[in-house]
């Protein structure tokens, strides 16, 4: 009967028997472990996870930093373009209206 059930189970769900056997083996091994070791391992696992999370945050910050640096570099270009435009226009206006006395700021 047992052999028949086993045969049927293998047919309906191949691999199930192997999985059950594996679970039994894991339980047997777990029973041999020292609870203190398990607790320490668990604590280390949490510490590692926290470190990974911090690392991910750092990577995200660095990526944002790189974007920000590129934005600032582009701003340099915009500032130079605007400065050139404003100075050229002002010079043209000054040229049209005569020289400016810088000390008194008068034309």
């Amino acid at each position, binding site marked *: 009967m047992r052999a028949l059930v086993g045969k049927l189970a293998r047919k309906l769900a191949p691999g199930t028997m192997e999985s059950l056997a594996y679970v039994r083996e894991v339980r047997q091994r777990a029973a041999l472990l020292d609870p203190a070791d398990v607790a320490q391992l668990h604590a280390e696992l949490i510490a590692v996870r926290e470190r990974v999370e911090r690392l991910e945050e750092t990577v995200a910050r660095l990526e944002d930093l790189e974007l920000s640096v590129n934005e600032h570099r582009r701003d340099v*270009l915009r500032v130079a373009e605007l400065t050139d*435009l404003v100075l050229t226009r002002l010079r043209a206006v000054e040229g049209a209206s005569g020289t400016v006395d810088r000390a008194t700021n008068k034309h």
Partner: protein
Amino acid sequence: MGRHAPAVDRIWAPFRLPDSPELEGIDVYVGDRHVWSSPVSASYVENGERIWGFPIGMSLGLRGTGEMIVRRRPDGAEIGRYPVDCARGSSDELVLRTGRGADGIVNKWGNLAVPVQRDPEMQQRMLDHTSSLMEALKEFGLRPFLMAGMLLGAVRDGDLLPHEEDGDIGYVSSATTPADMMLESFRLERFLAERGFESLRHSGTHLQIDFVREGRHEANVDVFGGFYLDDWFIQPFQVRARIPREALEPTGRVVLRGVEFDSLADPEPWLEANYVTGWKVPDPAFRFVTAPESARRMLGWFGAFNGQREFWEIYYGYAEAGRGGPSAAAKRLARNRSGRPVIDLGCGTGDDAVFLAQQGRRVIAIDASKRATNTTRERTEGLDVEVIRMNLVERRQVLDFIVDAQIDEADILVHRVLESLPGEERDNALLIARHLAGSRGEVHVGIVDRPDEGFTGADPRTWWIERAEIENRARGMGFELYGWRASREGARNIATAVMTRRQA
């Protein structure tokens, strides 16, 4: 030879060749003429084959029927033949020609070019132009030196490189910040313009000076400004290296074809920074590979204003004006009977400008291409059309135009332009709209809104842009966008829409 229409929508198969460890690159021949070289680093491997994308310069310049022969570098063994049929009814032999009928080559950027090597007179004139430009730079107060291909040729054997197309001059600026470096370059541009030099700006520090003779482009010489940031010498688009300052003192002399030029005290560190290793050995397949950390800095600080301008300039050497008639966006714009002037951004050879002017509109037609604006000017003679050559990628030119334009309220036409502008620079077109459309002007947008079968990164005619991006940019500039309509232009899926100022 008459004008040759480029295969606008043709899909060119890539070069597929058997891969082998000995393969260092390919040399491609049309007949017995060497027209293109490319290294393996410009290719990729797929199913055991090494694949090179078809360069856009070839698709524009090939005509006739025949085979291109592909030879292996370095031993020159024939490894393939590439059949070409672009005769369109003619049985002419296969040639690679420019729009003006000169034998062309494909340069290191994949574009069609004419090397000066074939014309000794032209070579001499290019050297003369380089000398005269160096004198002008000295007059401005700079200390120029011969650089890039010209320096390489002079140092190697006192001759021009075999595929040399232009002259190259560099200088070390006394500026200590990128912004000051650019301001100096802008002043230099005006100084040269006052002395009759025609220039084209490629970046905040890179100017191209065009030399024209009897109305025809004869040669160009590039001027590259560089500066020291602490110990680093930075000279876009390639050099960022710790070169000792004394090596870059322009106290050396080199001789090129018997003409003496100012050069660097020690050219080797500069050549090594520009060409990396192996610069002493000639390599026709050489391609620039800028280190990413250098490219990020140079692109961020100084921009890149080409925006496919070189492609369009070559393209308009072939394009037939008036082939397609007015665009869907122009026809839609013409339905509003406002009588407002129209600013046609990216006018090409003027199909829309002619159409709108014939509808009674005053048109300001703008394009970055010299050939396109020249053609538009010829076609619109006698019509109320002002043609302006302006680069939409360069914010300085855009701002200048806005300040100078005597327009209170205009309709803006921007058809098949936004998709070929670099991301951030798309706002430049909308900036013109924001300042010159007034409160009632309409902005008529036409875009290719989805990829077509023939998409290739090298050909901006096949590029597309999503409607959502246009909507977002429009909102950012204070416009409402409405009424998307789909249509076809040749092989392209076109979407047009209208933008108006958002009411407060």
